[in-house]
């Protein structure tokens, strides 16, 4: 039990010689790295805004918030509502599919699945997340739509339901995996506390784990919504480019992203109003996601159970 002074001396010497340089400089470096993404955001907003402003100078607001969108006609009109409509409907359908299924999958994986089951299911789900969206789009157009046509005879070849559902399927892994992480982060002592009071596993999952993990679950849902709003390929292929303002989800609608694809792959001459309209739509998309993020913040703060 003799104390060996040698080690103490080495430690003492090293610690007094240890340069504080890294401790000082690294936080600055980390800050700079963090700034990159912030600056990029500002850059994007600035670019979008400058050109979007030109659009708004050329087109009166009354027209922008109208339902008539026909950018290429002889008397062009740039009503944005059809696009917003298309975006909201496709995203809504996607959420109807993705949220319940994703949450159910998360609850199963984190609360009920055996280790063996998890080992099989998780990688399979991750594969689902890794499929390129163009494949999903193709799948929606050439498989899901024909299938749905048998159930809904009036369904158009391009429609909102089919890409909505497929987009939902694509998003399930995102919801499931983020929610599962949030549920797994709930400390075991909480589960044990509830089990110790005679709760069933199901009650523990629904009354203890989910409330404790709600802010993470909410963020996963909001992320999923952002993902759906921004999703492009599936809707471009399977929901088509109808610019009519309607609420008929069995028919084609164009989304904001779909509009941008159509116009950038066509020949929108730079400098025309049509060209600037792309930036306006881009800015709007950005505003949507920003709004979603704010909501996520707000919701998760409101529902937070601290632990």
């Amino acid at each position, binding site marked *: *039990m003799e*104390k*060996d002074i040698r*080690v103490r001396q*080495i*430690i003492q010497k*090293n*610690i*007094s010689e*240890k340069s504080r340089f890294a401790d000082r400089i690294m936080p600055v470096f980390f800050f700079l790295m963090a700034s990159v993404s912030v600056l990029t955001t500002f850059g994007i907003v600035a670019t979008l805004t400058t050109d979007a402003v030109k659009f708004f100078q050329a087109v009166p607001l009354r027209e922008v918030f109208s339902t008539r969108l026909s950018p290429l006609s002889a008397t062009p009109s740039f009503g944005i509502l059809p696009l917003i409509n298309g975006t909201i409907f496709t995203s809504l359908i996607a959420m109807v599919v993705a949220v319940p299924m994703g949450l159910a999958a998360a609850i199963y994986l984190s609360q009920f699945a055996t280790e063996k089951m998890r080992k099989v299911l998780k990688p399979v789900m991750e594969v689902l997340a890794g499929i390129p969206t163009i494949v999903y789009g193709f799948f929606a157009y050439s498989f899901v739509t024909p299938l749905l046509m048998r159930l809904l005879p009036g369904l158009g070849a391009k429609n909102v339901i089919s890409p909505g559902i497929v987009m939902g399927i694509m998003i399930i892994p995102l919801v499931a995996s983020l929610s599962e992480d949030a549920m797994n982060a709930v400390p075991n002592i909480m589960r044990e506390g509830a089990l110790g009071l005679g709760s069933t596993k199901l009650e523990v999952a629904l009354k203890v784990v989910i409330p404790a993990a709600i802010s993470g679950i909410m963020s996963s849902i909001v992320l999923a919504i952002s993902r759906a709003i921004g999703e492009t390929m599936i809707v471009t292929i399977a929901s088509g480019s109808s610019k009519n303002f309607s609420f008929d989800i069995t028919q084609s609608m164009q989304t904001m992203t779909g509009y941008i694809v159509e116009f950038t792959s066509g020949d929108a001459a730079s400098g025309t109003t049509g060209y600037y309209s792309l930036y306006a739509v881009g800015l709007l998309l950005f505003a949507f996601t920003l709004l979603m993020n704010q909501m996520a913040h707000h919701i998760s703060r409101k529902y937070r159970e601290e632990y």
Partner: protein
Amino acid sequence: MTNAVNENEKLVYEVKGLNLWYGNDQALKDVHLDIKKNEVTAIIGPSGCGKSTFIKTLNRMIENIPVVRTSGEILYHGENIFDKSIRVEELRTRVGMVFQKPNPFPKSIFENVVYGPKIHGIRDKKLLMEIAETSLRSAALWDEVKDRLNDNAYGLSGGQQQRLCIARCLAVQPDVILMDEPTSALDPIATYKIEELVDQLKAEYTISIVTHSMQQAARISDRTAFFLMGELIEFDTTETIFSNPRDQRTEDYITGRFG
């Protein structure tokens, strides 16, 4: 005069007029207390009286809570630990800490013990092995783990994990060891082992231990400090505190007649 100097050399800590606030709530009020070399100082008192707060102030761990403010002095071998010139990492290698819940790293037993020496620049494999062995021996854990040093530390029992944490603390060869209810999660046998260990360690180290167990304080400590609502009510030799306390509140507490 020479006597007084000698007395002072024996003082590891001199706490002078220490106040501490969490935001606006004062958790320590004008605490004066000396800790002597090679003694075990027990800190007792009801829940929420500031024991953990006090002990965490001794190595400035308390500063990790952003709302904390302090005033007063804590002299460690005559130097105020709140001085700008004090390097807090160095202070913490000299004043080690063992926590209430065993908190080994999710690494092997060996890596846990040599973590401190490694981050402080010791690379020599042979020396590290030596440090691991002596530290584990000092923590009375060597015989139980010597054949499984590369196993994950979480495979150990709670009591073994706690002794591993003590070994980890000893590996940087501190001068003081602070323990915050180190046995509250342990069974009587593991508790007994740790108490015995404390008794052996005090030949080489100065120890301060927070405990809720009167018996434990009486068994292992030389001096006992009784806190109540942030105030140090009484501080004396353990014998005096337990047989002949000056303050009624101390007597009420140790005899269990409190609140």
